[in-house]
């Protein structure tokens, strides 16, 4: 079972409609936007960020880590430039020497917020590659994320992202995928002997999936279900909280982010889950695994595992057996930024590929240095950024071509869809597969 070009086409059409929806945020005055952005900066700034902002020496090396700069050589895409509004706000309002710096630091105005919207949403996927490059050890992606949050607070997030967030916030659905759609898919899968236990009263493992999987990559969802069933785990999917994706994290609306997380935590508590497994989604993993406890203010009452982590653990425990893949293909594993660099999940996917006897061909950049797919952090939903994204895709294409594997495997539906769109645009024929699909195809009894 694989994703047909028809369903990708359908998904691309859905993406195209996002930008056409009317803006939901009431028209704000510029003063109000600036005030809201400033307050957002003020709320989010920590001493760690302050140290980072004070430390930047403007060396510009981060530009060389950024796929958008590399693809365009446009100096405005320099990561250190992307957090400039935050730097200026900080210097004027919070820095220990704010009284001295203020006269020499221009105030952030609404036009700045509009200008930076393009820089931090269209031209930054928060991949954190620059974090690894910075000679001062500055957490650049975190600072840019604060800028995004400020711009979102000012009601200036790109309308596609705003639309998705409003949808999740108001309808508890994404891309129109709500509980109904999920039930529909589960029914279809059942007819193919793939059982997904929905809304069990009690379960050890709560699995989360994503709208993108339901809509586009149901092969991956089916594969995960097959694996869960084979491992013998007592698991369930909750119709009230099946969505792992967190638009609050993407747009920068921390309240919305926390709300989505609380919904999951409540369901996990309700079914008594000890483990929450997140389907192949990088940012969903980051949201729950690394920010869930912080957003809800308490340690989570369950462990959070990425699908590949869970599968690797079951494999190690002998509950899952894998056979050698028959076709003898080689693959390049693409580390999703938020699973790899931001998440620490490098080894499990590779161990699984090795266990299946699949030849791994690493790209020049991988693991902590891997290039982003080019559309992470939902950048791929922003229509106007398509040409920029395609340029960044060329870097990935070059890397994959050099590694010369038969296929690309990844473990994030966002990476996968974005790479597929890029490949389709570039008429690049390499298959882009899901790790779960690959594992499911090689399960034995």
């Amino acid at each position: 079972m694989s994703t047909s070009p028809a369903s990708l086409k359908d998904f691309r059409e859905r993406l195209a409609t996002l930008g056409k929806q009317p803006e939901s945020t009431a028209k704000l005055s510029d003063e109000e936007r600036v005030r809201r952005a400033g307050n957002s900066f003020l709320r989010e700034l920590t001493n760690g960020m302050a140290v980072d902002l004070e430390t930047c020496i403007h060396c510009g090396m981060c530009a060389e880590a950024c796929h958008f700069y590399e693809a365009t050589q446009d100096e405005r895409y320099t990561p250190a430039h992307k957090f400039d509004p935050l730097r200026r706000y900080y210097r004027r309002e919070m820095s220990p020497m704010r009284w001295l710096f203020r006269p020499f630091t221009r105030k952030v105005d609404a036009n700045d917020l509009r200008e930076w919207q393009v820089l931090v949403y269209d031209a930054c996927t928060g991949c954190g590659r620059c974090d690894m490059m910075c000679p001062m050890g500055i957490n650049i992606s975190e600072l840019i994320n604060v800028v995004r949050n400020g711009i979102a607070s000012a009601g200036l997030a790109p309308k596609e992202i705003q639309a998705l967030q409003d949808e999740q916030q108001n309808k508890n659905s994404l891309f129109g995928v709500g509980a109904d759609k999920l039930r529909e898919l589960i029914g279809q899968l059942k007819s193919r002997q793939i059982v997904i236990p929905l809304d069990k009263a009690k379960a050890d493992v709560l699995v989360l999936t994503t709208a993108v999987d339901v809509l586009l990559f149901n092969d991956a969802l089916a594969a995960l279900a097959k694996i869960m069933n084979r491992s013998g785990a007592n698991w369930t999917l909750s119709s009230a909280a099946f969505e792992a994706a967190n638009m609050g994290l993407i747009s920068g609306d921390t309240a919305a982010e926390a709300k989505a997380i609380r919904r999951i935590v409540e369901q996990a508590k309700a079914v008594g889950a000890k483990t929450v497994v997140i389907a192949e989604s990088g940012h969903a993993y980051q949201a729950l695994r690394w920010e869930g406890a912080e957003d809800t203010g308490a340690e989570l009452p369950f462990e959070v595992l990425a699908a590949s982590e869970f599968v690797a653990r079951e494999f190690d425990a002998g509950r899952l057996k894998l056979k050698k893949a028959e076709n003898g293909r080689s693959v390049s594993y693409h580390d999703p930024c938020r699973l790899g660099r931001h998440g620490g999940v490098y080894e499990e996917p590779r161990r699984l590929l090795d266990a299946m006897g699949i030849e791994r061909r690493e790209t020049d950049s991988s693991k902590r240095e891997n290039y982003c797919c080019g559309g992470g952090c939902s950048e791929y939903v922003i229509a106007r950024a398509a040409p920029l994204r395609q340029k960044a895709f060329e870097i990935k294409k070059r890397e994959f071509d050099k590694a010369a594997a038969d296929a690309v495997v990844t473990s994030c539906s966002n990476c996968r869809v974005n790479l597929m769109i890029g490949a389709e645009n570039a008429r690049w024929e390499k298959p882009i597969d899901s790790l779960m699909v690959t594992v499911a195809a090689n399960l034995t009894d």
Partner: protein
Amino acid sequence: MTLLDFARGPGLQWSLIILIAGVLWRLGGTILLNARKDLSRPRHKGTLTDGLKVIATRSLPAHQFEKRIRFQHFSGYAWHIALFISVLFFAPHIFFFESLLGFGWPGLPNGIILATAAIAVAILIALLIRRASHPVQRLISNADDYISILLVIAPLVTGILAFAHVGARYPTLLAVHLLSVEAMFVWFPFGKLMHAALTFPSRFQAGASYGRKGVRA
């Protein structure tokens, strides 16, 4: 009071007062802001060692990134090392530190010091030109960047002139050299030269925050 007397006496005293007060002001006022509370379960314990490790490893070549930043990276190393050699191993400087700290260490022959200082100046000028001409650096640079680099070049140049007795009488050259160092001291806490102190907490937290996720930063 001659210029040299001023530079050795009140000039030095006041510039050090500003330096010390400013550094603590800026460090304290930054580090004492609200800290983020990490509540998520760490994948990896030992954030202290992760942090300390990154303080060291960020000084090493950056692997995959290296080929794109080679010039900046190695010029950066070169001038910093050259500067530190000139500052720390020139015998009269050691006597200065000794008078301040109460202990000294062995120095290097003057020829080596002169060479390292000249290397540092040459590289700094190259970097200054790069900053003013490279689109990325030009965009993200502000007055602080230019002032700071000039204030680092100044003591090196005046030091070389004083050493070579070129341009004026030695006491005048020495005074100008001291004053240029004092100007740098005064600027230090207010500009980006502070990275010399801030890079340690900054790198540490990169190591610690990535480290708890099991990622080598």
